[in-house]
Every structure is written in structure tokens, then in C-alpha cells.
């Protein structure tokens, strides 16, 4: 991979984190192809080959439905989240597809409360180079955290 492409990939990871941390949630599905996989999956399920994930979305339409559900129907304590994402490790490319992963930590802050480590894991990504820029064909968030502190509302 040439440096320009790697730089673009790094920018893409950073832009995603910015979007889910304090951007407009409606922009989140636009990081994905129409046909895509987005999953937030416990490491025990991933390692043991169990298909269950706390979120398992299979199209941009489902991502949009998730955004609607979060914004309009899910009642929850307000919180900020802050993603710290490592530099991506590129496993390879084939044609326009980049296969990469990165570690992440999400810190959660509720009003009037100290910040806490909320979720730690890694992204397993398949990223398509398109005329409009990079798009996820797959983003699977495999998290180590054995317990979710009550609930998970915003995308990881």
C-alpha cells in the first residue's frame, strides 16, 4: 500500500471516531456501503464461533433504522463517548478492498460523573475504495469487556 492510501485510511478511521463521538449520528451510516456488515460482538462469542452480537446489522438501511431507534425511541441516561483508536494494521489488499484492523478504547462520561473505561476491543474491517472515498463493507467491533456497564446506545 502506498503512503497516500495509508494516509487516506488513517483519515477514514479518525473521521469515523469523530462522527460517533460528537458528530451527527445521521452521518454514521454514510461510512458504509449499501451492502455491509456492522457488528458489536463479545469476544467470547467471536472466539467460540457463536454468531450472536449485541448489535448485528446487515445493510445501510438497518444502520439508518438503528439511528432512528437511538434518536427517537430509546430512552437512556445521556452520555458522551470518546474513542481512542490505534493506527490501523493493514493485513492486505485485494483490488479495491483493504483488510485492516485497529484497537480501540471507548471512554464514557455521564453528566456530573467522572469518565470511565466503557468498552475495549478491536475493529475487524473490510474497507472498499470507491469513487466517493473509502466505505466499510464490514466493521466488526470485537470487545474484550466482559460486562457492558448497563446498556449500549451509541455505535462503537
Amino acid at each position, binding site marked *: 500500500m502506498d503512503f497516500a492510501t495509508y494516509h487516506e485510511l488513517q483519515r477514514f478511521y479518525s473521521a469515523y471516531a469523530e462522527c460517533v463521538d460528537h458528530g451527527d449520528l445521521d452521518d454514521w451510516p454514510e461510512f458504509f456501503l449499501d451492502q455491509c456488515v456492522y457488528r458489536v460482538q463479545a469476544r467470547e462469542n467471536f472466539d467460540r464461533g457463536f454468531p450472536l452480537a449485541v448489535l448485528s446489522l446487515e445493510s445501510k438501511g438497518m444502520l439508518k*433504522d438503528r439511528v432512528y431507534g437511538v434518536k427517537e425511541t430509546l430512552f437512556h441516561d445521556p452520555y458522551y463517548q470518546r474513542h481512542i483508536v490505534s493506527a490501523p494494521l493493514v493485513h492486505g489488499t485485494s483490488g479495491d478492498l483493504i483488510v485492516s484492523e485497529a484497537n480501540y478504547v471507548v471512554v464514557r462520561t455521564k453528566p456530573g460523573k467522572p469518565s470511565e473505561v466503557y468498552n475495549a476491543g478491536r475493529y475487524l474491517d473490510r474497507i472498499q475504495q470507491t469513487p466517493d472515498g473509502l466505505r466499510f463493507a464490514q466493521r466488526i467491533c470485537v470487545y474484550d469487556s466482559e460486562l457492558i456497564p448497563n446498556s449500549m446506545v451509541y455505535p462503537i
Partner: protein
Amino acid sequence: MSHPNDKSQHKWPEGVFHRVPYWAYTDEDLYRRELDRMFYSNHWCYVGLEAEIPEPGNFKRTNIGERSVIMVRDDSGDVNVVENVCAHRGVAFCRAQHGTAKDFVCPYHQWSYDLKGNLQGVPFLRGVKQDGKVNGGMPKDFKKDQHNLNRLKVAVRNGVVFASFDHDVEPFEDFLGPDVLAYFDRVFDGRKLTILGYSRQRIPGNWKLMQENIKDPYHPGLLHTWFITFGLWRADQRSQMVMDDHGRHACMISRRNDGGASDVTKGVSSFKENMTLNDPSFLDVKEEAWWNGPTAVMMTLFPSVIIQQQVNSLSTRHIQPVDRDNFDFVWTHFGFEDDDEAMTQRRLRQSNLFGPAGFVSADDGEVIEFSQQGFYQRPEHSTVVAMGGHDIANTDHMVTETLIRGMYRYWQKIMEDE
């Protein structure tokens, strides 16, 4: 019977079950007594599914109340449940969440146990020979069979494993009672189960609040906006509330209607008409023959587990108290061995509605947290569970809190029993 945890001075108001004092959720002595009288005696507690340990040697570590136990299949195929405490020095020796073992060996002094919990090996039992004499060894009165692991009584019904520390507990079928047992057997009729995976969350609230949440048909059409928006739950859908004779276990049984606006949804401020999904696969529901009518049956088996059938999504939800203010909530999603690939995918897609991130579950954990916070602010106050009146009886509608009243009548009897 006298108990070590009888220090609480609180007394339940005689015969009043439509008010629950906040101290029932916040008093440390009462919490300890709940563990003793509900989780550690007189009740069957959920441990897991046989499908989690299909082969001899397979084990799973889990909790009953705050106590760590191991569910393990032995060489004869029997399911055993033993307490995860070495008889020698108390080491909680099993650290893996699951695995396969020929025996259990405590790492500290390598005492070993067979898969039924019988003590097998004690290093240097007969001492160590040195310079023609034997040093050490266990005394003559040491009997290996007096130092087994603590074995629990086990009940396996149609693939579901329950256990009790109390060997005098009534038979499992009597514990559920005939009406609740019938709904249990509706889901678990002996078909082989397949495990789809786990979700684990820690909810900062007293454990009883989760039992109450699934005994409360008043809230889903109000809190769970997603449900009503997309037509999965409405206060006027046909439903039944069924309890066992004690009022401790319950089933919320319902049939969904077609959704959309009605007189019922008009009063719900958050309801939005004409919402459609971008991708309808969340709601790709396929009726299954075994439902036999109801589209959703939520069972609360007191004190430890909820059994969920919400259209095609199935799970057990295991309540594991951590302290009086927190419990771990462990979801095991499952299907049946004869499910085709499309049905498995359907169950998985619908699982987006449930669990720690679920459209109609994440908010349950949130409101439980806020209730627990409120209880500490006004310790002299009590909750109101008077919807549908003061009586405790099965109903054929969901505009009622009768199941919660039933649970507290039972709770008060058990807790204040001398």
C-alpha cells in the same frame, strides 16, 4: 428457623401489597436474607442449558446468587453442579468460564476431584519417605470422602439445568406448579437446543427490579416506543397474566396485533404514525407451530431467571446478584437443532431488539438504574403497584401490576417467616 441475617428492623405493612417500601431494595441485612432464603435454600436456581455442555467433561462456570458454581457433564453423561470452592483451603479453583476437563485440580496443593465432585487425590496423603522414615502425611482420621466438593441438587428438564444448595427442596415440577410448567414445556419440549451466544451486562439496581420488569405489562407500550412504533406491543392486545399458586413465578402471554394507530396509541406521547423501517428484516417474523397461539411469552422463574420468547427470538436471562445495588444479567440466546439457516438468521436479526443494546431492552436497564437511585433519596417512601387494583389474581389483560403484587406477597412471607 433462626437465621444469621435477621438484623433488619423493617416490618412489612400487614396485608398491603400494592406498595413496596423502598427499604426492600436498599437494606443490606434484608439482601443477605434474600440470598439465604431464596438463592441458597428452598428454591431451584437456573444454571444453564445442557446444550452448553454436550460432551462428557464439558463444563461451564456460573453463579447462583453470589456463589460460584460449575455445571459439568461427567463420563456417564450426567450433569453435576458443584460449588467452586476447594475443600482444602477454600480456593475458587476453576477460573475458566467454560472448557473441558477430565477432573478438577486445585492449583494450590493439587487436590483433585472427579467430575461428580468426589475428592480423588491428595498429594503426600501418606507422607514423604526420607532416610528410612515417613514424614508428614494426613492423620489416620482423615477420610477422603468427607472432603468432597459441595454438591448441589440438580434438576434437568428438557435440556434446562437448575440446581439447589438445599437438598430438601421440593421437586422441580412442583416448584414451578402446573400452569407455569406448561408454558415452560411449550418452549422446552425436549427438542435439542443450539446455543447462539451470550450477552453480559451489569445493571446498577437491586436484582428484584428485573423480576418486576418482566412482571410488568404496564410499561412496554409506554417505555418501549420502538415496540409500539413498529406494532409489536400495544396495551389492547390480547394477553393473559398467569402465576403459580405462590405468586412467585409468572407468565406474560400475548398475541400481537397489526400495529398502527388506535385509541390506545393516541394517548402515548411518543407514538409516531406511519414509521416504516428502511430494512424490514428486523421484523421478518415467521410464525412457528409450537407457539400454539401466543406470539410472546415472557416467564419469570423466581428468583433467578427469565425465559424469553418474543416472536422468533429466544433467550434465557440469568439474574446474578452482585450486591444489593447491582446484578449481572447474562443472556443466552438459543434456537433449535432443527432450525434451518433462514430461521437461525431470523432469530439473530430479531436479537437486535433485545440485550444490552436492544431497541426494547436497553431502556429497561436504564430505568432500573434510576429507580435504585431514587430509593436511596427517600428511604421512608414506597413504590405504587396499584394498577388494576389491590388484588392478586390472574388476568386476561395487561393493564395490571398484579404479578408484582403477587411476588411481594410471596417475598414478605418468606422474608418474615420465623
